[in-house]
Every structure is written in C-alpha cells, then in structure tokens.
C-alpha cells in the first residue's frame, strides 16, 4: 500500500493543475488502513513526505480511516456504488473521517483528486 501512496506522490509532482488547486494546502493527513498508519505531508499542493507509522508524535489535520479491501475497491477503474468516493466509503460504513473536516472540505476537490491518482498508479502497478 505504501507503494501506491508513493506513486500518488510521484504522479502529483507531474500534475500541475492539481498543484495549482492545492497551492494553499500545506497540512499533514493521516491515512489509516486496517490500523496501519501512513502520514502524507503536503506542502503547497505537493506531497513532501510519505511516512509510515505508527507515530504518536506526528500531528495531523484530518484523518481518513478505512480498510484495505475498501481502498482497493475505491481504486478500481470503475468503482462499485459507494466505493466511488471517500464520502461514499463513509456512507456505506467502510471509512471514517476525523479531525478538521472543514479544512478537508475547503480543499475537497484537491484531496479527492489526489487520492484518486491511486487509480492510475494501481493500474500501472498491476
């Protein structure tokens, strides 16, 4: 899984339009998958670091907690209903969003589009 997030980091480096959308976004986001932590540290629309947890010392702005199967379905080229969006995962009970949700909402298109980069990364990896 960490490889997919590193792939997202790489793809974001090449996605000028996403960097423009996220130019005011410099926060750390916790992604927790089946209890395993990954910290994505954003700096002005780029991912500066992808760091595996666990960590009790890393502050984060918001967290997306889900399971590996749900995230795998989210990254399918055509996800099934409910698995097609992070809010869909929440609605079907397969994810939880914690922390400063308003910051997420203010940067929602950016964050969702960045996370969706995993669809192309996953295809390449396969």
């Amino acid at each position, binding site marked *: 899984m960490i490889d997919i997030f590193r792939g997202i980091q790489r793809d974001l480096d090449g996605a000028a339009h996403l960097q423009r959308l996220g130019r005011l976004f410099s926060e750390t986001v916790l992604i927790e998958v089946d209890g395993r932590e990954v910290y994505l540290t954003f700096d002005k629309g780029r991912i500066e670091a992808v760091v595996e947890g666990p960590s009790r010392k890393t502050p984060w702005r918001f967290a997306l907690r889900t399971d590996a199967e749900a995230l795998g379905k989210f990254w399918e*080229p*055509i*996800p099934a*209903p*409910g698995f*097609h*969006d*992070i*809010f*869909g995962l*929440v*609605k079907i009970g397969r994810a939880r969003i914690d922390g400063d949700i*308003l910051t997420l*909402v*203010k940067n*929602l*298109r950016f964050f*969702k589009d960045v996370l969706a980069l995993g669809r192309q990364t996953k295809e390449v990896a396969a």
Partner: protein
Amino acid sequence: MSIEPITGRYLTVTIGGTPHRIYFEEAGQSRPVLCLHTAGADTRQWRHLMNDASVTATHRLIAFDMPWHGKSLPPEGFETEEYLLTTEAYIETVLAVIDGLALDRPILAGCSMGGRIALQLAALHADRFSGFIAIEASDFQPAWYDIDWFHRPDAHGGEMGAALVSANISPFAPLVERWNTLWMFMQSGPGVFRGDLSFYTRDDSLIGRLAMIDTTKTPVHLIVGAYDLTCTPEDAARTARAIPGATLSVMDELGHFPMSEHPQGFRPFFLDGLAKMARGTDQAGQAA
C-alpha cells in the same frame, strides 16, 4: 456550426407578494413537460433532453431557473435577505410559472429537490398536472454534511459544493458531462446551494403526505441512480412503497444528476418514464 432548437425567454410573476423575473427555456411541441433542476444548479441540466428530437417531437419541454439560480435574478432587496427555500415558496413558484405560461396540466419532471417538490405537488396540487416523474427523489434526506460549509466568507461555496456533489456522479459519466455538471455548482450564487439544502435536508413534511397521492388520477414514476449517495435506491424504493401505485426504475450506471451527467445513459429511462405518464383519469389503474 450548429444552432440548437432551445429558445429562452423571461417571465415575470409574483411570488410571496414580490415580482420575480424568471428565465425559462423550451423546446418541442405537443404535450407539455415542466422540468425542475436540482439544488445549486439551473436549467442547463436539461439541455440534452431539450435537444433530443425523439423527445421533443411529441413533448414540449419547458425548464426554468428558480429565483436566485441561473439567469433568474433574486428578488429586490435580496442583499439583506438570507436565502432559505421553503416547501411553500417552492410550490408557489412552480404554480406561478404554470399559470404564467398557461400550461394545461403538464407532466412535472423534477430531479433531487425538484423531485421532492414534484411529490409534494402530487400530494397537494395533483389537479394541476397530468403525471409526475420524480428523479433522485425521496421522502426526506437529512444532511450527512453541514450545509453551512457552503456559505462562508473565507472559502468559495461553489467550489466546495461542486466537490461535495461530485460524490454523487457515476464513474460511468462521460468526463465532459461530469465537469459540465459540476460547473453549474461552481457558478451558483453565494448561499444559494445552502438555501436549497435547507429545504432539502430539513423539511420532512412530505413523509406524512405520500399516502395522499392518488396515482389512479396522476401517475407517479420514480427513477434513481445506483451511484447516488444522497438519494440512494433504498431511499427511492422506500418512498415508492409509500405511494400506492407508484413505479420505480433503478439505473445501475448513473448518479444523482442523470440528465446532465450522462445524457445517453438517462435517455431510455426518461422515455420510459414519459411512456408511463398515461393521460388523465381514462388511464386510471394502469399506473401500477
């Protein structure tokens, strides 16, 4: 070069004692179909069907921008008013447009909040219509988000609204139409999406009125997309079950804005809905 058959004009009607300048578009001939857009959007959501000759050969499609939306201005004095749509104002608006355009018992086709008000009108003013196509419509949907997110001085409500509703668009939707659909939300005036959502997520008065709907006089057909997180197929099915004689179609590959996000995918379902709109009481009993 091409020029579309859609024409647009303005109508001034009085709603709540105040004049409102309403923008409306139409295309086609014969049986009128009044089309209602979703929250935070406008008439452009219906443009594909209005450009579909197989629909407009036998139906006159009319769509209007709700006050505060699209090319309909807010009423005089809006600068000090908090926009909060109510069931009563919405009903008055739809009936005022019908009167203003002298429409004789149109079919009412509404999506999302437009579908909700279509069912309210089916319960309270069925005699003004000849049938109802309620798309992505349900009895009630409490918010799974904070509607105040979408009207703040420190962020762009339209961009946040578009990012939120993108969760309701099917991955089968062509990219160009996904983004055309989202653009309308991005263009929405400040506080308008929030004011629509206030109606959509806080007014549960339809629940107790569903049993009043008489589908032997005016057929009711519900259509819902499987990728709609806001009004799920389960929500639409619950609503349809509460209306004796109502019918329901589920679209496996569509979301919350079917006529806009995936016109070709929606077309057969809309045509099927129109075919179910039997005329008047002579078709009584056939709605089920």
